[in-house]
């Protein structure tokens, strides 16, 4: 009903290759974009600056990780380190007087270069071995940052990030910072959407499915793995830089520690490997759910009048949160994105359930 396919005819190639052939999808995207653009008008600043903004940036980061994990099928346990490289590069560049627009590109390039140099060594191995060597990237970065005062900013290991300036104008309002994050997230999303139908995207999928089979049909798997590492590191680096510029305003090593890498990985896995909408859901789930659970449980305790110790109150949400992750993955191992797709598939043929694929 909603996703009506009747009457859609692909009369030429461009129509056939449209990103969203079904009008309902286009409508939904359009409405969501409008809602996103108008968010500063109807949403209070708390939700805008503390939930929506980090969610958008982390979605962009998760999409970058999804590129390497979901598309190219390569494990990456050091993604936070890559984002950290970008963040530090951008902060140092802006402190040195380089305009922020250029600094974030520099951040992306630095992350990309270091990420792919590491990939050179790491890509000689596969699977779990690769996972471990990327974990090494994380630890090497942690160590370097905390032991080189020139990078970390001295004993305090905190570098204040200068306010971001776009075309010479300082962006400090909540709405302004939100739009910066929104633009970046939309950019990455459209890149990923289009990646699916490019030669690069198809080559990556071929490598993911079986790298020597890909080699047989003429896809240089090492080259494409390297490209995947470089591209995803670029996205990660810029996302890290934007995270610092718009949200943290100061960069410290623990913002990009190994825990954060695991969280990023969880975003992609809970969201769904290779799923774009899944990255949105995954980032929301991993990033916002602990806080939501926290408020939900403290609300429930006051509502139903049972008193809990502060420690129980702190641990209970974690337990629920963990149970939720397991629950979702049991119901649908392919992640939240797949759950969305199941619903959509159901609605595609509704009310004619018997035509189910």
């Amino acid at each position, binding site marked *: 009903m909603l996703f009506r396919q009747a009457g859609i005819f692909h009369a030429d190639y461009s129509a056939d290759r449209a990103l969203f052939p079904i009008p309902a999808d286009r409508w939904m995207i359009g409405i969501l974009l409008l809602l996103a653009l108008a968010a500063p008008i109807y949403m209070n600043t708390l939700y805008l600056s503390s939930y929506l903004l980090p969610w958008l940036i982390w979605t962009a980061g998760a999409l970058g990780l999804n590129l390497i994990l979901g598309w190219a099928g390569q494990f990456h346990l050091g993604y936070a380190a890559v984002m950290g490289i970008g963040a530090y590069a951008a902060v140092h560049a802006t*402190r040195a007087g380089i305009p922020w627009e250029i600094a974030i590109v520099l951040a992306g390039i630095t992350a990309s270069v270091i990420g792919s140099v590491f990939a050179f060594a790491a890509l000689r191995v596969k699977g779990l071995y690769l996972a471990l060597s990327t974990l090494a990237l994380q630890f090497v970065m942690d160590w370097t940052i*905390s032991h080189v005062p020139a990078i970390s900013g001295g004993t305090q290991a905190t570098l204040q990030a200068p306010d971001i300036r776009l075309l010479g104008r300082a962006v400090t309002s909540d709405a302004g910072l939100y739009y910066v994050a929104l633009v970046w997230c939309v950019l990455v999303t459209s890149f990923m959407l289009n990646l699916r139908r490019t030669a690069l995207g198809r080559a990556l999928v071929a490598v993911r499915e079986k790298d020597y089979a890909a080699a047989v049909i003429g896809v240089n798997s090492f080259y494409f793995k390297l490209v995947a590492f470089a591209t995803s590191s670029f996205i990660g680096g810029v996302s890290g830089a934007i995270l610092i510029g718009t949200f943290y305003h100061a960069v410290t090593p623990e913002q990009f520690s190994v825990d954060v890498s695991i969280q990023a990985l969880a975003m992609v896995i809970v969201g769904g490997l290779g799923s774009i909408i899944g990255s949105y859901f995954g980032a929301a789930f991993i990033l916002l759910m602990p806080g*939501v659970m926290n408020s*939900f449980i403290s609300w429930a305790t006051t509502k139903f009048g049972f008193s809990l110790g502060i*420690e129980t109150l702190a641990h209970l949400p974690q337990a629920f949160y963990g149970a939720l992750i397991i629950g979702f993955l049991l119901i649908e191992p392919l992640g939240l994105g797949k759950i969305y797709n199941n619903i959509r598939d159901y609605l595609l043929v509704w009310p004619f359930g018997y035509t189910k694929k």
Partner: protein
Amino acid sequence: MKLLSILAGLALALFNVVPAAAADPVRFALCYDLSKAYTFVTPQIAQAVRDYADLLNAKGGLEGHPIELIVQDHGNEPQRGIECYERLKREGVMVFDMLSTPVSRAVLPRIMKDGNILIQSLVGRGDAVDGNVFKWVFPIGPTYWGQAANDIEYIKQKSGGTLKGVKVAFFYIDYPFGQEPIGILKTLAQKEGFELQLVPYPLPGNDQASAWTQIRRLNPDWIVSWSLSNMHVIASREMKRNGISIEKYIAVNWLNEVDIKNIGPDVAKGLKRGTNVAGGSNQPLVQQIIKELYDKGKGNGDRKFTEDVYYNTGLAIYSIAFEGARLAIKNGGWPLTPDKIKAGLESLKNYDANGLIAPITVTAQDHGGGGKTRIEMWDGGKWVPQTDWIAGFQDDVWSVVKEQSADYAKSETQK
């Protein structure tokens, strides 16, 4: 369907956070790490603060205004700490305490921009005692730098007034918390002519074997240890194994009765600790709390925590914070503003936090209040003070502070 439940949860959260109406109470936000890295200290501190607030409220609160505490978990994650800050800030809370170095660092730029009060005792950046630069940050009490300098002062006293030829090993967990005192120790080593050896060991601190063989080879006269709780227990085991006397060991203040129990009260005899607060439940304030609350079954947690030194630490920090707020109401009147609370805290004079700390005098320049520490020794049954409350090498500590805070001030002007 599950998506619906997420949305329902989100919706509930939305309704939950309706800003409170103009409130009569004085509100303090304790965004603590109650579930991850700082759990060795946060429960005791939170319990102490709640007990003390109850005690004061029973007596009429702060100049007639009751104290309201908001305790929330941030799991030591900067992002959730910021969320806690941003939410409570909009609900009209003006005093925040994160009790976590990473989270304090993460909210600091926002605190400085918004002009709210950040209580940052014992954690976060030490150079924040420079009130000229960090106008809104109050790390009341001694900094790690001051404490390290006092350890050296104690060693100097013990070595007959001179440190020439004395060998000191600085044994620390290799991340920013442990690395912090290195600068001041190096400065003092150069000035006083003692031999300083740095012995780092890696996170999470369970494997110290190589560090202790290194110490055995160096054979230092003293070991200054920057470690957290259970790491001290592991250190004591390694000391035993390497035949190093535990009497040489001077721990940072993060070592409590639980750790002593784990080391073994007899084995720990002679162990030294730098402390910020007077420990033990024989303190008048603790006695009063036990009488007024725990004996009547109204305590906010397990009674045995009142024995813990971290309990007294919580009492000390919040004696200061509440007193500052009280002075703010008394001098500035109701309603409170961050400016008034700042002025209140800065007017603390010779305040000893109900006898728990050495008297401090906070000024607009010195937000630490000249926090002092003392060295205590475990005699097998209790802690015995080895020194008075001291603040050694203040000039050197302040020159490090100034140097670092100038760096911060410079980065602010670059904005």
